[in-house]
Every structure is written in C-alpha cells, then in structure tokens.
C-alpha cells in the first residue's frame, strides 16, 4: 500500500474512459515522439504534450513523483556515465578524465528521454486497471501469428502485465530489506555501494521464491495460457478513434517538420 510506483488510481476522466488499446498505442506513439526529440525546443513540445495529457487525466502531480522518485539514482548514474565517457570539446578535466559539451548534451538528452517515457507510462498505469492492460495487450497481439512460435497472445500478455505488476512489488521488497538493515545500524548514505550489494542478493533470492510461489498458485488454478473470453469485452468508441487519429496526425506532422 505504501509503494505507489506504477499503481492504478481510480478516477473519472477522459483518459480513464479510453479503451486500454488506445492508451497502449498512444504510449507507443509518444515513445516515438520522445526518441525522435533531440533539441530543447523539441523536448519543450513533448513536455507541453505531457502537460496536456496529465491535465485531462486528472492525475495528481504527486503520482508522477511517486513513479520518478525510485529511479532518480539510476538517472543520476546514467547521467554521470554519459558525462564522463563521451569524447568531444572539453569543459573541465580532472585526473584522467574530462567533462565535455557533448557528454553534457548526451547526458541531458538521455535523462530527458527516460523521464518522459516514465511520465507517459505513468499516465497509462495510473488510469488503467492492470487487468485491462493485460486485456489490451492480448487483443493487440491476437492477430499476430504467435502460435507458430509456440506461445499464445494471452500468455504473452500475462507475462507483460505480470512484469509491470512486479515492479512496485520489487521496490517494496527492496525497501523492506533496506529498512531491516537500517534498523540494524546501517547508514545507507555512508556506505552506498555496500548497501546496494547487500540489498541485491536477498532481493533476487526473494523474487525467485515469489515467482515460484506465483507459478504454483497459477497452475493450481488451472492457468493454461489459452485464449479466453472476458467478463467485460473491450470496445473501441468514437473517442478512441478520434484520439488515435489526432495522435497519429500529430506524430506525422512532428516527424515531417523536424
């Protein structure tokens, strides 16, 4: 309950009402938009798009913060790596390495892309029930000839949705292990690297145990990965088609003019 990373928040908004397939495709289109962006103006345009989507989804700002907060350390590490290991025009040098304009630019670009991807994904997860995300993925994948690969679209969708559902669980577990260590006198701010190594071993062990229990529980309830009907069948409304049309036009114009 305490971990709100990629969680669903019930509410009433246009985004909440949209079909999960529309939202999944929109996320895909926004991802193209984010990866196509390189300059400050382009990122500003992506930011305006995000603000508009966030406004109509009526999701509270704190929800986005809950999604970004656990990843700040990774963002920082990625930024430092780009900053230190990119060749180019030197800004400052020390010991055997130097910070370059290119490194700074690349670091900021990569971080901005990650941040926007997380923000757009948060709009999807905060406005769509996990079961609806599974249904949406399953319906999108259904026309693909997956049976020749030995898997069904339902199996693939279950795997994807379980992965999304596991992320908050993983963070919660890591927090519990960290709490146990802090309560036994460890100061994570002083021994950062030591704390990462001592968290990762039990985290992997606990996750594997959890996965094994989950598999047994699913098999006990006769999960066979076959396609099945749903209580609430998905239906694309007029608003879904209009939303997709606007987004596609936006993306095509953006790619054409930039």
């Amino acid at each position, binding site marked *: 309950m305490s971990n709100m990373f990629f969680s669903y928040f019930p509410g009433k908004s246009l985004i909440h009402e949209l079909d999960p397939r529309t939202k999944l495709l929109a996320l895909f289109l926004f991802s193209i938009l984010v990866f196509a962006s390189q300059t400050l103006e382009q990122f500003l345009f992506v930011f305006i798009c995000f603000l508009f989507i966030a406004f109509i989804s009526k999701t509270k700002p704190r929800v986005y913060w809950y999604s970004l907060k656990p990843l700040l350390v990774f963002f920082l590490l990625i930024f430092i790596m780009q900053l230190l290991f990119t060749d180019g025009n030197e800004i400052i040098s020390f010991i055997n390495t130097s910070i370059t304009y290119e490194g700074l630019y690349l670091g900021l670009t990569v971080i901005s892309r990650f941040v926007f991807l997380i923000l757009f994904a948060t709009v999807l997860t905060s406005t769509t029930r996990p079961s609806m995300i599974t249904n949406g993925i399953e319906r999108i994948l259904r026309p693909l000839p997956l049976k020749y690969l030995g898997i069904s679209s339902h199996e693939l969708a279950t795997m994807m949705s379980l992965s999304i559902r596991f992320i908050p669980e993983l963070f919660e577990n890591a927090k519990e292990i960290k709490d146990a260590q802090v*309560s036994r006198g460890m100061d994570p701010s002083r021994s950062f690297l030591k704390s990462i190594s001592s968290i990762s071993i039990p985290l992997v062990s606990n996750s594997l145990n959890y996965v094994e229990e989950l598999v047994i529980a699913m098999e006990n309830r006769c999960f066979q990965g076959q396609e099945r009907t749903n209580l609430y069948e998905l239906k694309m409304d007029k608003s879904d088609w209009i939303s997709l049309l606007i987004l596609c036009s936006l993306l095509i114009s953006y790619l054409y003019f930039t």
Partner: protein
Amino acid sequence: MPIVVRDVTYSYSKGTSLENQVLNNLTFKVDEGKFTAILGDTGAGKSTLLRLVVGLLKPDNGTVLIDGFDAGHRSVKGTIGVLFQNPEKQLFSKTCYEDIAFGPLNLGFEKEDVHQKVLTASAIVGFEQKNLETSPFKLSGGEKKKLALAGVLAMEPKYLILDEPTTGLDYCGKKGLLSNLGLIHSKGTTIIMITHQLTELLSLAQDVLYLKDGTIDFHGSVQEFIEFPSSNKPPITHFMSKLNEHGLQVNQNLYTVNEAFSEIKSYVHKRMKDHV
C-alpha cells in the same frame, strides 16, 4: 520517559485518490522496562505504528520521541531492535553468522566482542551453532525467525520491538520464543510486541494498547483489558465464564490453563468437603 508518541497522524499515498489515513491522533507512552502488547485487527495500523516508532516513517503530524530524541535520530541508533513481520525479508547475508554479526559490526564493536555477541544471541534464541555457517535462505520458517531475532538481540538493544513474532511457528517454537522473550524482559529490556493473539501474551505483558481504526481504543493493564467489552477474550476466560453461567462459582478472570486448573481443582475439593 523512554518512548513517547504524541498526537501522531499518518497517511499512506498522500496527495492521491488512494490517500488512506491509518493513524489518527495517537498519544501514549511506554515506560522503561515494561512489556507492552499492541493488539488490534488487521489494518488497524499496528505495523505502521511500529515503523514510526523505529523511525523508518515520519509522522504527518505529531512527534515520536525515544529517550527525548526524535525517532530515527543518530543518538537513538542501536538502542532499538526491531523484528519485522516477515523474517525472510530481514535476512540478507551470505551466512547466518554474518547476518547476526551485521548489527554489532555496524555499531562499531571489535571483532572479538562481535563473535561473543553472536554466540550469546544465538544461544538465547536457541539457534543451533552448527547452522551458523549455512546460508540463511536455506533455513525453515521457524529457524529464519530465530535467526532474525538473534540478529536483533546481538545489538543488545534497550528497546525491543517485535511485529507478530510467533506467526508461522509451531507450538514448541512459540513456547520457546515466548520464554526467551520473558528472559530478555527480566534482564531489563523494554519490549513492545505486536500481535493478534492475546492468549500468548497474557503471562508476559504488563500493558495492553488496543488499536481500532487507527485510534487507541484501550490502554491499560492486561487484567483491565480482559474485562474491556470489545476485547476478544482468551478461550480459558470464555470457558470459566461458561462454567459460571452454569452455576459453578469459579473465578472467571483467568487466562492460562494452569490458573484454570488450580481454580477448578480447589472448587471440586471445596464441594467434596461440603458433601462429606
């Protein structure tokens, strides 16, 4: 005053549509050397209260003071030992020995002292020394619980806080753990224990704090709690009440098998004497 909780309020998922206030204006104190039981239904806020007292969470309003310092303050470090609900998430080292030694090493003790503390703590909880070099992940649930408790006790904390420590233990495991806690308490350690099961605490606890919907419904002695209307009375107390209802004039406010046995025995003796 060792542990003081004053006007504490706490909510999860603040600022979202899932905001949930779990603790509302909680005020109480725990005296030094006391054994306090925190009872309440699932979702009453017991585990959240534990995390606030240990300093892992910060209250939205109010204060939690340990020996006059804010919970989580550096000066409090090492004085509180906490056993969480899921011991398997509290174990993280490669061997059981390293896991027990983790706390004392962080507190800056010398290696020889740490070794002694590991041996003493594992002996107190009855953790077999032959298992000290094995991986904690290979232990059974009961052994993991013992190991987690040993890891906490090795720090020799002034305050020991336990979140449902007997859950998942068999009868012998429970009995052993409770007698160990009695022993630790008799040496002067202040103990706060969260539990659902009142019966197992009655012979140990001095104070009872009963949480209901995030507020304190009751705070007082064990004897007062048994007479408290909304408490779930232990089965023995129920049994004695039933005997009373059926005309046997025995003391109802008993809560252990031994006490009930003595009471019934003396009642039978008395009736037999009257007949003779």
